[in-house]
């Protein structure tokens, strides 16, 4: 079936079966591979994108449910909050293997868009769903704090 999706401000036409997860539409269909596959069961957060501004697990979001939605992926994360988060991630040298980091960043952008000055506990709670096998959490939390300061400045 043909579907029209609004991704990163553009309308994209894709051919996919109903029930296909957005994750695989992005990665295989549209060759937008910044969004990562980690578990397939919405448990690790590697596949996080924004659907209408809300961090969403794309591995359990299905193509037929997205007709009227605005989808933002890491490739399209360019607003002020995104820029602050990415700059903070680089300053703190958060990444190791990097596979989870698109998802971490999309969640962090979601957090700071909702709550520009989160407490330490609020950061840990919000970011709990994004697993990092390299265990970069110490730096992730420092980077979220730094991004928050950048946005305040």
């Amino acid at each position: 079936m043909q579907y029209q999706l609004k991704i990163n401000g553009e309308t994209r036409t894709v051919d996919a079966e109903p029930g296909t997860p957005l994750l695989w539409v992005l990665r295989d269909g549209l060759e937008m591979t910044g969004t990562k596959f980690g578990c397939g069961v919405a448990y690790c957060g590697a596949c996080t994108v924004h659907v209408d501004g809300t961090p969403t697990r794309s591995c359990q979001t299905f193509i037929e449910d997205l007709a009227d939605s605005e989808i933002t992926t890491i490739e399209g994360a360019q607003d002020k909050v995104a820029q602050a988060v990415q700059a903070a991630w680089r300053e703190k040298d958060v990444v190791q293997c990097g596979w989870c980091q698109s998802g971490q960043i999309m969640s962090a952008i979601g957090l700071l868009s909702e709550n520009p000055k989160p407490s330490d506990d609020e950061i840990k709670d919000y970011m709990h769903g994004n697993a990092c096998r390299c265990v970069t959490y110490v730096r992730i939390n420092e980077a979220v704090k730094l991004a928050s300061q950048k946005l305040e400045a």
Partner: protein
Amino acid sequence: MNINVSRRGFLAGSAATAGALLVGLNAKGVLAATAQASQVTDFNPFVKIDADGTLTVVIKHFEMGQGTTTGLTTLVAEELDADWNRVTTEFAPANNSKYANLFFSMQGTGGSTSIANSYMQYREAGAAARDLLIRAAARSWGVDPASIRVEKSVLTSGDKSGHFGEFVAIASTLTPVEKPTVKTPDQFRLIGDATLHRKDNTSKTNGTAQFAMDVNLPGMVYAAIQRSPKFGGTVTSFDDSAAKNVAGFVAAQVLPNKAGVVAFAKNTWAAFQARDALNVEWDFSKAETRNTDTLIEDHKALLDKPQFNANPEITLDEVAPVLAGAAKTIDAEFTFPFLAHAPLEALNCTIEPIENGVRVHDGCQMPALTRPTVAKILGLEPEQVEIKTLYAGGSFGRRANPDADYNAEAALAFAVSGRKVPVKLVWSREDDMRGGYYRPMAAHRAKIALDADGKVIGWDHRVAVKSIMKGSLFQGMIKNDIDPTSVEGVTESLYSVPNFGIGLSDFQTPVPILWWRSVGNTHTAFAMETLMDMLADETGQDPIEMRLAMLDPNGPNQARMINAIKLVRDMSGWKKGDKRGFACHFSFNTCVAVVADITVTDDTSVHVNKLFMAVECGVAINPDVIKAQMEGGAGFALTAIMRNEITLADGEVEQQNFPDYELLRNGEMPAVEVAIVKSNNAPTGVGEPGVPPTGPALANAIFAQTGKRIFDLPMTKAGFEFV
């Protein structure tokens, strides 16, 4: 001499001056630069400098997050005095001699050796390039080479100055020195700079970093494999009628080795669905069919009569009379579960047909293993197999496999596909959890003999574990029937222990096992450091002071460990009677000492507040990367020690995905304070050594607060929960 016209230069439209200087060790190990592109094949370039002055460092060790693209680059940029912001990296192609790991004599990454083996090689490559550029500038300006200074990719003499690229053309006509002079540590500008940023941190924060799973090629088909639910099972027949109902399904075929059935499809999602829909009949006659409990008991039974003596200086029989005459003994038995590596990028490999061979797209950890394995399956010469190394989304040992298992699977799938189009094999998370190659299950039994004064007079230590290396391509590492990875950490203990008998039994099971970040040390350090804590408790000694007393300061590694222990003791403010946990361990030529600060509620609910870690790893090339590896290594250890295990029921893995193999989450990770012992010695490993001492430090903290010893991992088995 070799000068390559760079693509970058062509793009800039400055072909007349466009050039690239390539410097490295040639096949004979002699530094060389060369001007003929045709010579590139027998030439080993680590350093390329384009006409615009951009330095490209060729990285011979794949990047799984451990920091090779930053570390190896630092070594070259240091000697060249390059501008860090004008340095880029590329991964080396497969070439087993030119890009060999100098410790392995083959191309591959592992054992925390990337910096250690490359330290002089990459520095000399940078120094040779610097020397050529200086002489080129001297000739160009008509000045004495000694008058030229280099800073941030710019050469200066008097009022003359120019960037690297301006001298590439002349430099490529000069003969490089055979043995370039490298800097002395006091001249380092980049080495030791904690503010240097990772080379991969832009592409990994904007989605552009290319991992193997990100490969998309025209006409590519996707493959997923249904493997035997019991290890060692083989396919007898299959029915794909249900798979045919999956949109995008292409075909299904039995793999030539009967290890599974591969489903081909038009995308990954369809491949997974079609694979799941295959109905496969299996022959389990040679398969593992035991339960975890039985496997544990079978390991313990092997401790009664060890097969091999792992300490050539003394046998267990010789230690027996010492034990019999002891005033007191300390006895303990430990068990360790199978563990999955679970890199977050699940295994995958793409094989693409190219003229006269294939190209393998892989986060390739061991090109020396992948290349011949793929070649053999496809009936090709190794030279016909090109390897395109991409970023790897973690490994923790999983991608360094003597069997090159997932590369071999991809080659088998490509072979049965007809070899006309690229085939991308992708593992799901369930494949990863259930796919074997685990950290082996292990059991230890120890008896420490004390005299009437509480002094150690003998130690009987026994290990039962399946050998990683026996029967593998690494068989040559076996000495006197001992697989060193089975007992490392006991045999290499730094402590002065008299009459230290060490016995080993090899466990047999079809469950495939593999090294897992820090290998044998994952279990040996836990046993040894728990025993040391028991010894301190039994004899009323401070655990840190007791260890210091058992380390001979005249031993070079003991002296390093003493420095690490004292550093962590001081930074943590450790006091006698401290209710925190201490452990230390020597592995991969590095010393790490850890103090764990925890809070226990209701005797069983544990929160890890903070870890203090001190590391002695020789000269610290990238202090911030070392710190990151200590943080990550500690977190990796905590995850496993607390609650991870792969269990079998009738030979079938019970875990499916992360919900039943819980990774450490944000909020569970303690604060970590890392200190690095200052040293100008050659650098040693950092990727693995943070793992071994962290688990026992936590266990010893739990004992300090609850009086309860933990002998069977994971800790959840002892009734602890982690909050």
